[in-house]
Structures are given as C-alpha cells and as structure tokens.
C-alpha cells in the first residue's frame, strides 16, 4: 500500500469510527432516553427475550439509524419507543413523558401528537384517499384547527410530491407514493420526532432514495428521526448508527474499531472486554492484566519512543491495539501511556482470553485481519 492509499484508508476508517461514536453518553437533557429495556415474548414454544437490557439515548435533531440482522430486536426496540409495545422491564422517557407507564388510550393520543410513525408496509387506511389519510391524525388528535386540516394535508402531500394524486385511494398509487403519503401522514400533527420502521424496505431504489431525501430535509427542519433499516447504504447516510445483535447493543467503540467483524464476534467482544481507566500520563503497564486487545473508548492513548522523545502517536477513541501491536511496541522499546491532558478510557481483553478466542473462532481472526496495521501504518513501518 502506498502512502496515498494508506491515507485514504485512514480517512475511511476515521469516518467509520465517527459514525459509530455516540455523540455522548445518556444525559438528562437527552430528548429520548431508554434505560435497561428488557422485552420478553411468550408463546407456546416458550419465552424469548428480544431485548436484553438495552440502554440508549437520542438528542433532538439527530438522524439515527438502528441496524442489525433480522431478529436482532431492532423493530422491537423501535416499538418500545413508539409505545406500540411495552417493555417487560426498564423505562422509556420521551421529553418529560415516561411512555412505558401510559395506558393504551393515553398513549395513543400522546403518540398522535408527538410521534410520527412510518411503517414498512405503509399502513394507510385503504378506504380513505391519500388526502383523507393525512387528515385523519389531525381529526383524531384535534391539535390542528378543523378549518386548516385539509389545506395542511394538501400542503404536506405537495411537500412529498403527491399533490396531484391527493384524491386517489392508496391502492391506486405506487408503493413509493404510498410511503410518501405515510410520511406526510406522520407529519400531520407536526410531531418533533419521526420514527420509521424499515421505511424503504418495500420500495425500489429510486423510491427509497426519494424517501431518504425527504428525511434529510426534515432533519434540516429540526426533526429528530430514528430509522430502523437493514440497508447499510442508508445507515451510512444517517448521523449515528446503533448496532443491535441478538437483543443487545454492540458497544459502539468496538463496532467502530472492527467494522469488518461479524456481529456475533462484536457482541462477544462487547461482553468480554473490560473497561479500564488510565490516569493522565499513566503507563499501560499499570493495568492489572496483560492485555491481548485494547480499544480506546475515551481520551487518548499515546505511544512514544523514550529514545526519540519527539516521536509519538496518539490513538483516539475507536482505535485499537492488538497483541501483535503490543508485541511490536515492546520489541521496539516503545512506551504506551495515557494522554497527559485527559487520561485514557480503555476496553481491554486479557491476552490469554484473546488467544483462546482466536483459536476457537476463525471468523474472529478474519475480522482482525488488519490487526497491527493501524499502529504500524501510523508508526511508519508499513504493512
């Protein structure tokens, strides 16, 4: 790899890291706060835990994609947010409202006023025209004055490009048009939050693009959009991504560090890597374990040459060091320590567990193909 290619790659890696980085941990002022959400479904076959203690927060104005494989729990997570379903345990707060405590009736009215929901299968009322479908939430919630409802519905349909077919029944227009009408309906009561469950899952590429462009415009207007998708292309265009696997959120730093790694490996690491904190300037050797894999989750990790003090590199959150890197560092007599300004937060896996993992899980090895390259590249050793 020449240096130009290397730089390009580095930029891409950085961009990927940025996408998985949470803008912040849960703050009191977060618009949406989900804490320790557990959802257990019961049927004849037994119990199935769809969400296993998920905690996530969202700020106003964010455009967040929630991705994961089929059955990972992403739709269930969104259903908890919309009140379409209730958590078995945990809490969901939107603004000042704890929606998990509301009755179905109160929830319905609150939802009509505060959330716009877009479904994968559009879910328009088949007997009403597109215009009437958009008017319906206004009639149900009665927030928009009656005299303005039709004009507003027409304007919303114009906005989504359906002005000309406003009087048609849903079945008389294309799937893309139906989804656009569903988005117009979701905006009927001007809710601050839009929640979309696979909104483009049933659309062709062109229609999907149009829907996504619409979402982008809505973000510019200050809406908050949470979107479930399995389309990585679409997820990349959002400002943040939550990765769900088997009912759990994958640690965003781990997801950022190993974008090529499979979800089950990422989840394994999320479970196994232990958080560690190095104080300002503290040496890595101060860690109580001999690490096999390190992921920076906060502050900086500095690698310096004691003999040539001017030569050092700084690893920021989302960067990682694996056993191979640590071996090279040791061989070259380099020092690894926390940044002098903020110290460093780490996720660490001890060396024995790391080697055992690599031996047992071939896929893990494949996900760590570039192990050491980050450090080597930056150190100028080539890879």
């Amino acid at each position, binding site marked *: 790899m020449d240096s130009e290619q290397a730089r390009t790659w580095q930029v891409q890696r950085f961009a990927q890291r940025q996408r998985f980085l949470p803008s912040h941990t849960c703050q009191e002022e977060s618009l949406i706060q989900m804490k320790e959400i557990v959802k257990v479904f019961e049927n004849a076959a037994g119990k199935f835990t769809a969400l296993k203690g998920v905690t996530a927060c969202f700020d106003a104005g964010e455009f967040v994609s929630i991705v994961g494989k089929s059955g990972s729990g992403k739709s269930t997570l969104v259903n908890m947010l919309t009140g*379409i379903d209730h958590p078995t345990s945990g809490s969901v707060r939107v603004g000042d409202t704890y929606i998990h405590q509301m009755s179905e009736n109160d929830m319905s*009215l609150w939802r009509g006023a505060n959330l716009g929901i877009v479904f994968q299968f559009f879910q*328009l*009322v088949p007997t*009403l025209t597109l215009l009437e479908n958009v008017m319906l939430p206004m009639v149900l919630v009665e927030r928009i004055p009656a005299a303005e409802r039709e004009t507003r519905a027409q304007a919303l349909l114009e906005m989504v490009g359906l002005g000309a077919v406003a*009087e048609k029944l849903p079945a*008389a227009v294309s799937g893309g048009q139906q989804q656009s009408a569903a988005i117009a309906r979701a905006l009927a009561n001007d809710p601050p939050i839009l929640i979309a469950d696979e909104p483009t899952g049933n659309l062709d590429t062109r229609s999907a693009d149009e829907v996504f462009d619409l979402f982008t415009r809505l973000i510019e207007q200050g809406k908050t959009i949470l979107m479930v998708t399995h389309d990585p292309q679409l997820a990349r265009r959002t400002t943040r991504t939550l990765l769900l696997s088997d009912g759990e959120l994958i640690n965003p730093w781990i997801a950022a560090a190993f974008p090529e790694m499979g979800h089950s490996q990422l989840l394994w690491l999320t479970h196994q890597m232990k958080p560690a904190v190095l104080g300002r300037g503290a040496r890595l050797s101060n860690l109580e374990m001999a690490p096999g894999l390190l992921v920076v989750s906060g502050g900086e990790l500095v690698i310096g040459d004691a003999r040539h003090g001017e030569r050092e590199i700084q690893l920021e959150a989302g960067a990682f060091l694996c056993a191979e890197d640590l071996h090279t560092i040791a061989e070259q007599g380099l020092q690894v320590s926390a940044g002098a300004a903020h110290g460093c937060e780490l996720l660490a896996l001890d060396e024995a567990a790391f080697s055992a993992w690599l031996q047992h899980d071939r896929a893990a090895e494949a996900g760590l193909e570039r192990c050491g390259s980050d450090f080597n590249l930056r150190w100028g050793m080539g890879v």
Partner: protein
Amino acid sequence: MRLRPRLQKVLSDLAGNRQRSLLVLASIAVGLFAIGVITTIYVVGPDDMRSGYAATNPPNIAVQALLFDRCAPEHIAQTPGVRQVEAVRYASTRLQTGPNDWAAIDLRTAKDLANLQIGTVTVVNGKWPPGEREIVIDQYKLPDTNAEVGDMIELETPSGKTKAVRLVGVIQDLGIGAFRGAGGFFNAPIQGFVTQETLEWLEQPQPKRYNTLLLTVQGDDQDEVYLESVAQQVREELERCNVQVISVATRSSTEHPNLFLSQAILAVLLVIGLLVAFLSGFLITNTLQAIMNQQVQQIGILKTVGARRYQVMGIYLLLSLLFGALAFVIAAPLAPQVAFPVIDFLTVQMNYIFYGPRLVPEAVIAQAVLAVLLPVSAALLPVWQGANISVQEALSGLSQRNPPNQGWLDRKLSGLRRRSLLLVVSLRNTFRRKGRLLLTLVTLTLGGAVFIATFSVRVSLLDYVNQIVQYFLADVNITLDRAYRIEEIEGLIRQVPGVKQVEGWMFARTEIVLADGSVGESVSLLAPPAASPLVKPILVAGRWLQPGDRNAIALSELFKDAFPDLEVGDTLRLRVEDKETDWVVVGFFQLAGKVSGYSAYTSYEYLSELLNQPGRAVAFRVVSQSPNLNNLEQEALGQAVEAHLSRNGIRVVDMTTGKHLLKTATDGFDVLTSFLLFLAILTALTGSIGLTGAMSLNVMERTREIGILRAIGASDKALMRIVLTEGALIGMMSWVLSSLAAFPISELMSDSISQSMFGGPANFGFSPIGYVLWLVAVSALAVVASVMPARNATRLTIREVLSYE
C-alpha cells in the same frame, strides 16, 4: 394424505383464532338448530296427534238421537261395515264455580265406563272410573271448575237445585270436539264422566237411556265416502227401530279434532323453516367469505410450496365440512331439548298425547344434510375466488384484479369529510365490500323480516279475534228452559238496573240435508231480529240478513270448506225440528273458522214463524247501559238478570257473558299466537347470532386497521365511534329492509295459517311491536356485536394488531 401438513396448518390457524371460529360455528349451528327444532315439531306433533287419537279407538261415526233404549247396540253392530258400537248418554247441565258463578258442563255416561270400547280416555290423575256420586273431569277445562281432585262439585239438576258430587279423577279425552256440530274442541264445555246411577241421582230424565251412538267401522276408516255410506245405513237401521236421529257425523280414525290447527302451525313452520334455511345459507356464505379473506396469505403460502388450485379448494371445502360437522354435533342434541318441551307444552293446548322425547330421523337427516350442503355450497364461491388468487396477490395483500375506483358514493362522501372524517371512515368501511355488505344485509333482513312478520301475523290473528267480538256484542246471553213471550221477558229484564237493551233470539239445532237425501253435519242456527245491532258480521261473500228476508240464511266460512261449490244465491236444505226446509244462501261470514262448528244466521221473524213460536224466544241477549264491561262486570249483570228472572218464576238454564263466549271462540288462536311468539324468538335468536357473527367478523377483519388508527392517535372513544357508527348503520339499513320485507312474508305466513284455519286468505295485520322490538334488538345487537371485537382490538397492543392475520 399429502394434504395433511397443510390442512393441519389451516386447522391450527383456525384454532388460534378461537373467537372467529366460534362465531362461524355458532352461525352454522344456530341455523341447524332452528331447522332441527322446526323439523322435530313438524314431524312429532302431527304424528303423536294422529297415533294418540287412533289409540283411543275413536268413533268413525257418531249418531245423535233423541233418548232411546230400543235398538240395542248389539243389533246395530250387525249393520254391514260396523265393527263396534257403544251407546253413550250425554247430558248438559251447569256446574257451580263460585257463589254465583256457573259454567256449562257436558256429562257423559255409558253402561260400563270401566270398559269403554270406543273413544277411550287416558287417566291423568286420581281414579277411573268414577263411582256413585263421583265425577271425573277432562283436564283441558278443569281449571274452569276451580276444583281439585277430592273437592266436591255442585251440579245443577233440571229442577234448578244443586247436588254435590266428588271430583275423583282427571282424564284426557282426545275426542272432544271430534264432531263439529258440538262447536269444536275449544268451544266445547267442561267434559265430565259420571255413572248412570249418578246421572239418575242428578235427576236427569231417563238416565238409563242413550242419546248418542258411537261406532267404528270395518274396512277403510280413512275413506270418507265409505264412512258416509255406513253411517247412512246405521241411520236407516235406527229409524227402523223408531229412534229419532238428530245428526250423524263421520270422522277417520286418525283425524284428531285439532289436526286442522296443527296443520296451520305446520304451514307456518314450513314457511319459517325455509326462511331459516335461506338465512343459514347466507350466514354461512358470509362467515366463510370472511374466513377466506383472512386466509388469503395462507393460500399464497400454500401455492408457493406447490399447492394446486384443487388442493387449496379441497382444504377449505373440507374445512367448511368440518365446521358443518362440528355445528351438527352441537345443534343435533340441542334441537330436541327445545323442540320436545314445545311439543309437550302444546299437548294440553291442543289436546293430544306426547309420546316422549325420541330420535326423530327426519330432523337428524335434515340437519345432517344441511350441515353438509349448506357450508359446502356456501363456501364454494368464496373458496373458488380464494383459490384463484395469485401468489403475488396473496402474499402482498394487494389486489391486482380489482383496481380501486371511486364511485358516486365515494365522491359524495368526500364532501362530508370537512364535517366528520370519522363518519366518512365508518361509511366507507360499511360500503367497502359491497358483496359482503349485501350478504350481511340479506341475512339480517331475512331474520328481521321473519321476526317482524311473526308479530304481524299474530296481530292479524288478534285483529281477527277482535273482529269476532262483533258477534258477541251482547254483554249477557241468557237461555231459558223453554220459549217465553219476548215482551214478557224483555219487560222483566229491563227492570234490572243497568240494562239498556234486550233482544229475544231464536235458536235451533239443525242438520244439513245432503243431495242424496242423507243428513249431514249439525248446524247451529241463530236467529236475531233482522235489524239487530248486536251482530256485526265479517262478510266474506254476499250480504247480511235484511228485514223482510224470508228463508234467507248467512253461513259461516266452514260451509265453504265442506261445500266448496256452495255459492251465494244457492239453495241449502236443512232439517229443522224434523222438517226439511230450503234456505237461500245470501252470504258467507267469517267466524272462527274450523275452531268453531257450523253456524248460520237467519232472521228471528222467519225462524220463529217456521217453529210456530212467533213472538216467543228461548234465548235473550242483554246489553248494559255502560259500554265496554269487563267479564266480571258482565257476570255481575248476568247474575242480577238471572236472579230477577228466578224471582219471577222463570228458569234460566244458561247464562254466559259475551266475553266468555268470545274467549271460548278464540281459545284456538291463543295456541297459535303463543306458538308464533316462540317462532319469533327462535328467529330472533337465529337473526341475532347472524348479526353478531357478521358484524363481529366485519370488525375482526379490520383489526389491523384499528391498529393503524391507534398508531396515528385514535383514542378508545374515537375507535368506538367509528365501529359503532358502522354497526349502527348496517343495523339500520337491515332494519329498513326487514321492515319492507316483513310485508310479503307476513302476508305469506298469514295466508298459510288462514288457508288452514278458514280456507281463505287472511286479513292483513300490522304490528308496530315487531318493528320496534326488532329495532331495539338490532340496535342492541349492533352495539354488542361491534363493541366486543372492537374492545378486544383496542386491548391488543399495536404490535399484536399489526401482526394480526
């Protein structure tokens, strides 16, 4: 067995939605149940009536004569064609039912009551036969006596004294009213049985003499002509013995006296049975259509894994059969549980013996055939349509065959949306599936129409009863022991306070003289003054009697039944007091049809002249100064009149109030009207379950839509409003249609009854009660049927709703 896994899938889907499956099952079962009840009554009622009657060895010929002791029964038994003969004595007297109350009673006796050969009786309670100074009474009018077994009963003697006999037993005599001259079962007085010795003690003249011969025949006892010929020979034989015959009547051994009434009931049952079968058919088509709509995705899946059209059809047709079979299992044992108590209830009302619950193959077969045919034929169209759906269509749920178009109604409704979009939602939903709507409406309309019609038929019968009042306008009817001068009696009666008007009527018991010279049925000939205001007849042909008429006669409609060729203007020969006289028929009037006997009216002036009794009368009609007296007030007036006449040495042999006469004349209608009420309830039940099923399925089908509405902000109130409006709308539409359809249906039912009872079409009756009740029922059902599934739907979380299939 290749279909087994797929069939299992379908079955488990259905088991998974128990509410819907139960509705379908209930819809089919209620239809089968109604058919089962109707068929059981239809078969068992007349069967038991015929066989019970035949088991009493009923007389085929009854001869009434003046008291005789000549011509021993053994002698008459030698007459060709005669099998058995029994001589019987009937005596009419009065029984005291209260301090001043009397009721007519016919006492029957025979030489050996313990060994009655002809017209045997069934002991209901107590002892049989009665001993000396004891009496046994028939159960039907026992309540009129106010006595129980063990009580003493006061009977009037011909001299006007009373003597007490002990009531020792209650029997059932199936032969009451068998001979029409007596006025039929309902008009017959209380029937009592006493020994000849008791009769003697009761001071009846010549107690060992007889006045009736009962005979059975050898050979075909169903052949009317044969019976008539044997009867004629018997008459001739009796006359050869100088026995003065009053009347001769014939009847087959299986023709129970109330069979005509059961035929009227059967006619209604038949009409309702057919309507219920139609109703069930629509109901099942409707419900199966709903199931097929919900199974579309399953069909898509089946087709994806290789199922061909016939296999898909096979599965669902088998499924409908399964529903039919399950419904049969529910309905077949339930139907007798209702049918037999109804039959049992009618035994006393219609005087027959119920031989107990039993397997009625006709009912089981009818239910089984319908359980197979109805669901399968009803499912055929929806299954065909469902099986023809393309995989893509089935899986996506998007129909490509019927591109949506907005019709006139949709455009009109758009105009409403500014005022009430929720109303538009309800209206659009109502009219969304026009085929389904039509089926639902047809089902509900039929159910409602039959319900309303039964009330109208009931009213037409009750109207009829009210019309019969016009024959009983007098408050009190007095019969004296002999003919008195009218002026004398009128003067006496007018002295009683409260009496407004008195009329003397002539009365004669006559017989029809047939074309061959033989004597036929007895006729009650009444003769009010020609311009009497106390009779306002319901004329069905011709005119009423006019002053100046000579041998003019107006006949009851029963004559039309027996002599269809008899027309206004024809001459009828009657034997009046041994004299054969010709009468010109001037009109036919409607009385109580076959419930009453043959009766005729002529003018007092002519009959009194004919009987050489001018200015004299036996019967008197008394009218009170106060209009609309009730029965008790009429009785009080009658007792006052009777007491006053007695004080003046005039003996009253019978005093009956107008209201009492009306009641006995219309008792038969009560049986019919209460039976109609039962049928109305049965129909309402069928209709109600149909309505509940159809509407619940409508709402269930839209569970997903309810979820969508929930997701976009619909409160419980808004959802209920939408669903209820729709339910109410369908309910109202069906009510309007039912109201219209009720007219021809009630006409059909009334005519069927009327043909059986009167031999002619019925008067049209209109009952607002039926309309109002059905409106209330349909509204209540619409609410219940819509709210229950809607409440269930709102209780589901939206996740469950959106995954509902």
